[in-house]
């Protein structure tokens, strides 16, 4: 296997056509049976992958009815989500307020203790 073969093998997975390899390597592929075979494998692979676009699976028959049910209740769901967010925000706010009160009280106590210490 030549250096060109090695480079072609490295680059083939990333291109959509042998022409994308550049003039020099594309020219090499034209004269190298091994590289032609490898290029043909990648061409087949891309072709078979492209063929999958024509294959459509049938969705389970329960998809539409359960989706309709969800959509009919989606407003309630969204309201419920909003309720959770509001409750979480309220909890966070009250926790922050509590922390602020505790910090203020702690500062007052420390100042009071310092004053008492200096007075003593």
């Amino acid at each position: 296997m030549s250096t060109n073969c090695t480079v072609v093998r490295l680059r083939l997975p990333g291109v959509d056509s042998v022409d994308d390899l550049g003039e020099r390597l594309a020219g090499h592929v034209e004269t190298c049976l091994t590289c032609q075979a490898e290029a043909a494998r990648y061409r087949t692979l891309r072709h078979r992958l492209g063929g999958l676009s024509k294959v459509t699976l049938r969705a389970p028959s329960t998809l539409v009815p359960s989706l309709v049910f969800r959509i009919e209740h989606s407003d309630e769901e969204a309201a419920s989500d909003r309720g959770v967010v509001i409750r979480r925000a309220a909890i966070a706010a009250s926790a922050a307020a509590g922390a602020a009160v505790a910090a203020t009280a702690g500062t007052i106590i420390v100042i009071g203790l310092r004053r008492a210490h200096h007075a003593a």
Partner: protein
Amino acid sequence: MSSPEVERYEESELVERASRGDQAAFTELVRAHQNEVYTLAVRMVADRELAYDVAQEAFVRAWRAIARFRGDAKFSTWMHRITVNTAFTHRDRRKRTQTDSLDDIYREPESASLSPERGGESAAMRGPLEDALKELPESLRAVVVLKDVYEWSHTEIAEHLDISVTAAKVRLHRARKSLRLTLWRHQDEEES
């Protein structure tokens, strides 16, 4: 009713009605596009049950956002984008909860619970290529499916997967190389 049977003008009318809150119109759109959305979801996540959840969630998101759908793209293209984004949200969610799930360990063999739909699906997904795709890591599978099956550009893939264009190209390279090695493994062994 399948997607090609819905004429373009009829579809835009359904979209218009759905965007004004008409659930019946949206249900018609779902009926027309459910198979293609479900198929894309199966290809993205390689798991039928998860794909079902992804497809359903994608339609719910579409319903919530349809008032903002401007109609400059086809409805199916818009649905594909939502499905891809939803598949990634579910993947991330699953990664976070994976250690808790015993379902994967004790899951029934596939053939034991085949409904007619699932039988059809199983037949369509059979074959060495589908098996090789399922074996790919999710990040590689997503890129090769979107590029080579759905013909998305590298830029579109990069944008939707939140990666750079270079990363999209690298993943495509790795995915194709892995598929090629898997599919022609026996031939390679005979030649060496």
